[in-house]
């Protein structure tokens, strides 16, 4: 992406710093939460952790393990890339200690401070703690990342195409006798052939006894099974998800009734979605459909987690749950999925990611919102 895109992002982060009185942001990126560093440096990382310091004024500095130094340098957004060793953090301490005209900053925020390991936290506290107050900036960064740029949306549209193809690959492989893990292998190959760099995928097969989705098992598909999946490829740093269910053979009355319930709930969520509504508003609209049909209990934490969530450089951003009053702004990306268990047909999933617009939303997927019924 361009340097103009970098400047757009850094300006947003710095505005948030101003609002919270911070002199700099230290982004900590452990192996499973790299999104903030991705956002600030636009680099695909492999190492177990990396950090990046963005001061209120001046140039950013990235700190990586040797395996990632070239990736950050070649991305071209950060010129100052320094190698770090696991417990030293000497390079980080040296950089921050002189960040403010050769003096340490008064106050910095650390994104994913809650995950900063004991050893690294100790090195930071000993190195700069005497002069610099440190606090979490995890929420600050997730708030900044919620609104996507045009460049980010382009990547997510492409990721949406790959997501559609992933579902198609899974459908092609659905046959009695195939194991759940073979389905994943087949799907994964299609995603990777199209350039996906990662994928998060859960699956479940069977009947109304299914209570949730997990990694795949050795279970072999049988005629009449409903296969549920959420698959979430990552392309060029950005994630999109699809949630669909498919039946091997003709759907039962219960499966059809279940699908209609979930379709109506999803559409209710989408119908209220536009810039300015809250996550609570969307969740409420979905859950009201369940409540109206006497299935309200199945919208609770006993049976489900969220009614959707944000997408972007992380696959699971702002949660769409009743009580979460986060305002969904224009160009936020969210998936609306009323996934849960009901006695109608067991666990059922249906969901699409969309871009929030001033008067509604733009779809990122083309896969039909139907209950797939396959020859078996």
């Amino acid at each position, binding site marked *: 992406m361009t340097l103009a895109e970098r400047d757009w992002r850094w300006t947003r982060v710095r505005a948030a710093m101003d609002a919270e009185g911070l002199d700099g942001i230290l982004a900590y990126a452990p192996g*499973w939460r790299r999104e903030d560093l991705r956002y600030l440096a636009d680099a695909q990382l492999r190492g177990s952790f990396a950090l990046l310091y963005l001061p209120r004024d001046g140039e950013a500095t990235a700190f990586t393990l040797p395996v990632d130094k070239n990736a950050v340098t070649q991305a071209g957004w950060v010129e100052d890339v320094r190698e770090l060793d696991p417990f030293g953090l000497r390079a980080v301490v040296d950089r921050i200690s002189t960040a403010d005209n050769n003096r340490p900053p008064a106050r910095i925020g650390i994104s994913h*401070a809650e995950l900063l390991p*004991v050893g690294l*936290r100790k090195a930071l506290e000993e190195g700069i703690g005497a002069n610099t107050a440190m606090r979490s900036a995890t929420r600050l960064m997730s708030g900044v990342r919620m609104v996507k740029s045009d460049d980010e949306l382009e990547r997510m549209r492409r990721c949406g195409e790959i997501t559609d193809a992933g579902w198609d690959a899974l459908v092609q492989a659905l046959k009695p006798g195939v194991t759940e893990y073979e389905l994943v292998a087949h799907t994964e190959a299609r995603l990777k052939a199209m350039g996906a760099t990662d994928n998060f995928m*859960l699956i479940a097969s069977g009947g109304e006894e299914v209570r949730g989705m997990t990694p*795949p098992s050795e279970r072999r598909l049988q005629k009449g099974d409903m296969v549920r999946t959420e698959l979430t490829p990552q392309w060029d740093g950005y994630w999109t998800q699809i949630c669909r269910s498919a039946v091997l053979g003709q759907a039962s009355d219960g499966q059809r009734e279940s699908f209609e319930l979930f379709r109506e709930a999803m559409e209710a969520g989408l119908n209220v979605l536009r810039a300015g509504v809250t996550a609570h508003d969307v969740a409420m609209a979905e859950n009201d459909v369940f409540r109206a049909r006497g299935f309200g209990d199945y919208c609770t934490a006993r049976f489900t987690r969220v009614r959707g969530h944000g997408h972007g450089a992380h696959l699971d951003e702002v949660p769409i749950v009743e009580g979460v009053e986060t305002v969904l702004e224009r160009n936020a990306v969210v998936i609306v999925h009323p996934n849960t268990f009901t006695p109608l047909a067991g666990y059922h999933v249906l969901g699409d990611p969309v871009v929030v617009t001033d008067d509604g939303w733009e779809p990122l997927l083309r896969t039909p919102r139907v209950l797939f019924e396959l020859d078996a």
Partner: protein
Amino acid sequence: MKRGLVAAAGADTPVYEARLERLREQVRDMGAVAALVYGDVYRSDDIAHLTNLCIYWNEGVLAVPADGPPAFLAKLSARVHPWMRRTSILEDLRASQRLPELIASYLDELGPGPVAFVEEDWWPGELAAGIEAAASERGSVTLGDAVRRTRLAPDTRDLDDLRRAGEIVAGALAAAESAADGEDANARIAAIERAARGEGARDVLAFAAPAAGDGGALTVELTVQFANVWASAARTFGGDGSADSALTSVIESLRSGMPVPDGVGVKVVHHCDLATAGDLRPAADAAQPLSDGAVVAVTVRAENGEVAGDTLRIAADGASALTIPTLETA
């Protein structure tokens, strides 16, 4: 992220119980009430080794009391507990959004005594501090990399799985080699995913990149998890073989008792550190000689950017590769 086969612990329960008992002995030796092992979706091999639990999302803590069954404590919803019970040896599963308080409450049930952190330096500092605050009267001790040390030389169960992991790696790389011509990295990675996950790999970390220079060679580095162990290998397609010959030289020199090779471009990682590519291994490791029965991944990067690597079992009379397909005779 882990999205491959998770098979149940099944008949291997005595294997896990023996592993837990080894840890319990260390807990008792330190006078501690329990060991606490942290794991997240990126790094949870110690917990998997002790229980067969796969943390496919988020994070959690395994508690192993000095006497008694282990417990897994996490923010993860109790909705996933039935699956965890089906696939692991765990019976005691607890969930709360206030994890430090949950752990402190659990420790209270065990009685007085310090708690022993495993690999405390890599625990999230906020969580460790929260536990120490919530259980401030009991104090803490450190067990270092106690679980990892017992994994360095694999037991019979892990060795069987390592051999299978090696076969999967070899098969996946063979599929990649025949999948495409030239630098079509995506086609080769797709072939790897299909082959490895189709054979039951739990996780696949595959990276393909053009070798430096203008020869059109493509490097492929592959690390695969099967059950609870990892094997790794690297190949260069379309290269001049310079990395292969360098790797052969390193392999021929390997013996138990010798120092870990550390030449330019040579990287040696114990199998139990492969999930994190050796990034988090103790610094003192480099000075330790290779032990008899150790399983290590050796990767050689030649000056022209070509890469070669294999996973090997170390013995007194040499090293045997787990990631090279066995040649079948006619």
